């Protein structure tokens, strides 16, 4: 019993007090800031090294929906592309994930997430989500699980992952959507009652990621339903996911 108390005391409180203001360490590769004028090399060579084809030209840009934030282009571009440690990279519009040269983090953040007024009105302050892993490598799944651990404690906002789609207000997709999982994903979506939201988490769910060229995927689902929120990353950090949901629900 005394040992247990000692353990509890050592453990203390591990929760991050302010999820909204929390910042990540310098090494984190988050929002890319691009300064094309500083690039003097060969653009074709630069775009070719990207493992997911996320780099665009005219102007130089990075599609965060494809980007796996490996940072290889930062090295190759001699600093013209720089991954900052800023982590609020989610958006409600797929097109907005394309970050062009000159776009600052603050400017991106100001309009990245359009809060869902209607959903808030119906669902109140709580949000229950059914997560479906459809070919995910367990990276995104581990970070989504971490959202509910003692450090991030997403439950404090009334946001939880639930077991049944019947209890859920929406689904969270991870993975590139394999052919073998496409029917189950579709069934889970249909089982959630309206109104419902769809959140795509990670490069794979948004664009196929490193598996985009696999012939074993079936991504018709993402064309058929409306994805309400895109959360980039490989995998997205828990703070990225939680803040995206809070912004979407206008909870800050």
């Amino acid at each position: 019993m005394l040992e247990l108390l000692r353990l509890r005391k050592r453990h203390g409180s591990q929760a991050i007090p302010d999820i909204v203001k929390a910042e990540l360490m310098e090494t984190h590769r988050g929002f890319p800031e691009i300064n094309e004028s500083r690039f003097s090399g060969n653009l074709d060579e630069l775009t070719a090294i990207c493992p997911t084809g996320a780099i665009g030209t005219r102007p130089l840009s990075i599609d965060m929906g494809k980007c796996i934030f490996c940072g290889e282009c930062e090295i190759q571009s001699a600093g013209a592309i720089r991954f900052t440690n800023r982590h609020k990279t989610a958006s409600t519009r797929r097109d907005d994930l394309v970050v062009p040269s000159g776009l600052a983090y603050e400017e991106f953040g100001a309009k990245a997430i359009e809060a869902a007024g209607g959903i808030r009105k119906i669902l109140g302050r709580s949000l229950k989500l059914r997560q479906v892993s459809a070919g995910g490598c367990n990276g995104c799944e581990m970070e989504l699980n971490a959202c509910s651990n003692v450090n991030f404690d997403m439950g404090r906002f009334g946001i939880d992952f639930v077991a049944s789609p019947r209890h859920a207000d929406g689904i969270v997709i991870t993975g590139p959507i394999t052919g073998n999982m496409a029917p189950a994903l579709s069934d889970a979506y249909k089982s959630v009652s309206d109104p419902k939201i769809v959140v795509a988490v990670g490069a794979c769910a948004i664009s196929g990621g490193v598996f985009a060229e696999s012939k074993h995927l079936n991504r018709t689902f993402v064309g058929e339903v409306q994805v309400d929120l895109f959360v980039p990353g490989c995998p997205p950090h828990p703070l990225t996911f939680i803040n995206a949901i809070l912004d979407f629900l206008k909870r800050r």
Partner: protein
Amino acid sequence: MKWLETANLRTVRLAEIPNWDLEELAHQTVARVNGGGRLLLFFGEETREGVFVYSLVADDNQSKIFVASSRVTRGMSYKSMTPDIPSAHLFERELFEEFGVEPKGHPWLKPVRYGIPGVNEREDQYEFFSVKGDEAHEVGVGPIHAGVIEPGHFRFSCHGEKIYQLEIKLGFQHRGVQELFIREPFSTIYLEKLAESVAGDTVIGHAGGFARAFESLSGTQVPERAKVIRTIALELERVAIHLGDLSAISGDVAYLTGNSVFGALRTKVINTTMAICGNRFGRGLMKLGGVGFDVTPVLRDKITALVDDLEEDVSLAAEVLFSSSSVLERLEETGVVTKEAARDIGMVGPAARASGVAVDVRSDHPFDGFVLMPVHKLTLPGGDVFARAYIRYIEIQQSFRLIREQLASLSPGGIRSELKGPHPGIFVVSLTEGWRGEIAHAVITDEAGKIRKVKVKDPSFNNWFGLSLAVREEGISDFPLCNKSFNLSYCGFDL
């Protein structure tokens, strides 16, 4: 019949690999495994000259690997090895699924990932085992499970609350990883990132294993400093996941203090990995030819402080966990896999060691920092959930020691060598002891030096059947606990 002898990361010329007819290859494989060998890999490769089947048997005591092959054609059949050596069961099913080479007499020739075109490729064509009789019933779970977990289907044949048999149907995560390894255009960066995503919980294990295979094929000498950093990263990965597993096991027996404490400790480990390379799971660290990030003096102090700090925290938390009678009541004698069963079905990693089977690649077929630093193989006799939980605790302590030793041997120097192209017409197998157990990457180059085949085997491929055996005769309510005690990968299996 003489096998070609090789070893972990030692390349052989394709032309040197003996080629026998398929019956002979199967017969010799059975003989070698029955003579004390361990079936490492048995897989096919389609070439212009037909399908080549490679059989690899390990002699763990002598750090040797024996390889032989057979050229076959689709539709061929041979006498199944599985009745004699059960560890062949999935390899034979996989070969049948991919190349239509039929093992006659296989007891359960079912699909592995996607079925046989025209036979059982649709999910509703899969035939489960069934039970009939009074009070006999079946429970189907998945592919979507209750939590935030990868998909797979579990079919329980039960009598009342008791499980007779568990059939595990996987393949939902199949995304063609092995095909993508040989896609055009060739890009080393793409290969690194793809290897990281074979199983996102084993980034260092798989990316490191593939990198070592590629470096062997190309004769690239990796700087010692990089090898040390890789070894530290691998052990950090092991510590992090083992802590997470202890947290999950605690949660499953409603021991919430353990659930919280181990979870918070895991966070400290993965945040340290992030301090090294910018990603909590070590993405970006493993490069072909070395590592992408150095361990600076500041990081070195940070890792040392982490280990010092954690050592005390972990032992306190584990002592409390493993002395709680209500916890022990759930863990002990639950989900037993006997030593004989574990060895026969070819289990690997901590799950095998918890059943008393002494296999550990770090010791049997050493790589990187383990070549110069012997690792004592830890085993426990029980084979139950307790043993699989407790072995994680003692492995964490062992990893702390290994990390300290590696930090002490961190010599000055570069962290990355210039990468050469792979040599033509050669074969290599790279074995890695990931946190889950033995990871194998067999890589073959063509006559132009291009990679033409990458065969990946995650330890989950060996161990899923162990979970089936563990839950037999157990109450169905103990399944989640047994499952957590294995913590196997779906995507690593499905590829």
